[in-house]
């Protein structure tokens, strides 16, 4: 009886000893030196592993940060300036500072305004259907509606609305840029995000001539140039029958929004306009202008 107890005790402890020795030898023999700063930097990074920085994950990005001489080109869009500042403190290197951005969807062609002329059958993926043809509607620039952007978003910051269009939840968007890459139509763009998330941008990419574009979609940009004419800051440029608003120059005055005949220019998060009577409208515009100025001043000070 006692022997069996003893026997098992000895056996177990000897297995333990042998295993310990083997583990010890292996850990010494196969030890790989690693810069401790990599782990330190990794701890600071947001651990989202989204790939927004261009590296396959936060660890890989940390290795790149530690390994590269000049890291001013590298940026973690999710962590933003705060994280990059901490990285800079750890590594003692210069980092670039970037204005925060947010993804916007530049297509308003939902089911109601952009009639479907064909029916697509096949895998529900924009990338695959884009290989076969230009989409279910007559607009070959607009959203395909199969939600590749929503599928790649790791932060649940996008969803498809009832109209079949993707919507960005601004608060959740980390501007990792995955959706931008996923969209075969380049509909999603990263635009600067200011404090109250005020944005003015053209919600259309249709380069067709006005009549054709309008026939395909009620809210298409028809290339009439009215917005270009009205813009006081020359922020709007016309290319291939399509307006584009340069966010750097735009002061968010919203004059273009008012003149657009097809309502293809989108404004977000502005306070609702007071109805009619020209005077108060001027006021609001003025208010917005001052706000915008304050905003841009803020941005400048940040920069």
């Amino acid at each position: 009886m006692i022997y069996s107890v003893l026997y098992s005790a000895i056996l177990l402890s000897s297995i333990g000893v042998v295993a310990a020795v083997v583990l010890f030898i292996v850990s010494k023999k196969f030890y790989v030196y690693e810069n401790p700063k990599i782990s330190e930097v990794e701890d600071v990074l947001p651990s989202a592993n989204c790939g927004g920085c261009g590296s396959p994950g936060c660890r890989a990005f940390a290795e790149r940060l530690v390994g590269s001489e000049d890291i001013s080109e590298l940026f973690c869009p999710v962590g933003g300036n705060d994280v990059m500042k901490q990285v800079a403190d750890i590594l003692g290197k210069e980092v670039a500072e970037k204005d925060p951005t947010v993804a916007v969807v530049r297509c308003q062609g939902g089911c109601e305004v952009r009639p479907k002329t064909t029916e697509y059958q096949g895998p529900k993926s924009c990338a695959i259907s884009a290989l076969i043809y230009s989409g279910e509607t007559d607009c070959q620039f607009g959203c395909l509606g199969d939600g590749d952007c929503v599928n790649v978003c790791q932060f649940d910051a996008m969803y498809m609305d009832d109209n079949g269009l993707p919507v960005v939840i601004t608060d959740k968007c980390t501007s990792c840029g995955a959706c931008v890459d996923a969209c075969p139509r380049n509909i999603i763009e990263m635009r600067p995000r200011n404090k109250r998330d005020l944005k003015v941008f053209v919600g259309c990419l249709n380069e067709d001539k006005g009549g054709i574009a309008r026939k395909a979609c009620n809210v298409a940009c028809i290339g009439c140039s009215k917005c270009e004419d009205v813009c006081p800051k020359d922020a709007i440029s016309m290319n291939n029958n399509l307006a584009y608003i340069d966010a750097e120059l735009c002061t968010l005055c919203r004059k273009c929004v008012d003149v657009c005949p097809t309502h293809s220019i989108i404004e977000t998060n502005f306070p609702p306009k007071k109805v009619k009577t020209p005077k108060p409208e001027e006021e609001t515009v003025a208010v917005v202008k001052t706000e915008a100025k304050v905003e841009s001043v803020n941005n400048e000070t940040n920069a």
Partner: protein
Amino acid sequence: MLKTFPKGGVHPEENKLTSSKAIKRMPVPKVVYVPIAQHIGIPAEIIVNQKDKVQKGQVVAKSGGFVSSNIHSPVAGTVTKLDMIVDTSGYKKQCIVIRTDEKDESNQEIPEFPLKKEITMEQKDILQHISDSGIVGLGGATFPSHVKLDLKNDNKVDYLIINGVECEPYLTADHRLMLEKAEEIIVGIQILMKALHINKAVIGIENNKRDAIEVLKKAAADDDRIQVAALQVKYPQGSEKQLIKAIIGREVPKGGLPMDVGVIVHNVGTIFAIYQAVQYDQPLTERVVTVTGKNLEKASNFWVKIGTPIKDLVEEVGGLPEGTRKIVNGGPMMGKAIKNTDVPVTKGTSGILVISEDEASRQEPENCIRCGKCVFVCPMGLEPHLLMNLTEKGMYERAASEDVMTCIECGSCSYVCPSHRPLLDYIRFGKSIVKKLNTAKN
């Protein structure tokens, strides 16, 4: 035992409804829409302006490089505009719109070209003529023909194979052409043999076209260098690589061209176009198109001007029948569904297939039951189920190492899958990504 390729293949319902219908000539359309990208490679460059008068057969877009092709005006008329038109790719592409001049006599006369057997042209001129005449592979791949004929010295080509297989169901354009223009095709073959110094030519025809085999055998009786091979009916025998394997047993190496095994393959339609170009200096401005569908009463084969809107063709056979849900440019296995009937006929249009409601819809895909049918039917020895899985999961490099790029997109896997899985859709997507990755690497 008839010859065929050894591995894979399927045998879809043949449905050759129009094989007994002689080729009719379509009336000259009022307006033609001539896309500048009708071939594989660089699009042609437009050399006419709006309001220019053009002659029938005049070059309107010049070859944009080596792998490119001239495009000629199919009618005499006026260029009304240079516009973006949805073509067979499903996207808007640059197009030359030409309004036919109804008074011009050259539009009215029906060209008559008596058989001309004597080949007077020199070798160099022949090749130049083929290149100038805008001839591309008329089987559907639309690969510029002069590129295939441009032999490097180190490539020893000893076989010319003529593709009269027409393995796609429904299509009968090549079949009718072989029946009606057999002599011309033989002369065309002789032209190519002269130009390339080849002494052996084989015409491959599937055994469901017995009449064509007989006619061509008779036409080729004088020339013992030209043989006619009857082949077992199996799809995709019309694919170059499968056809070479079936007829002379040589296997084009992975990623290689038929030239690498000393073979050049041309479609019978291309051969006829070459005959026209060399003997009568006629550029490629028309082709045979099969307009077919189970519900079309007047389905037939037509000589059609390049650029004719498919609408006109459909009118010619009595309009779209009720319940039409799909219009395919090409055959049912490899053709492309088109968005509307405004799409013009291009050099690659071998047929227009109208599919009705009950056959147009795809079935809902189910789980893969790993039956391996896709593996058995793949003529290239690939594993479509695996490739689809890898593409679906974004493992493109793995897919590349599983030879996704050798897929010939014949569609046999999707055709046979009992779970109705969109195998080819994913493989095609995987190919496009791998292609991008490869170009990025280089």
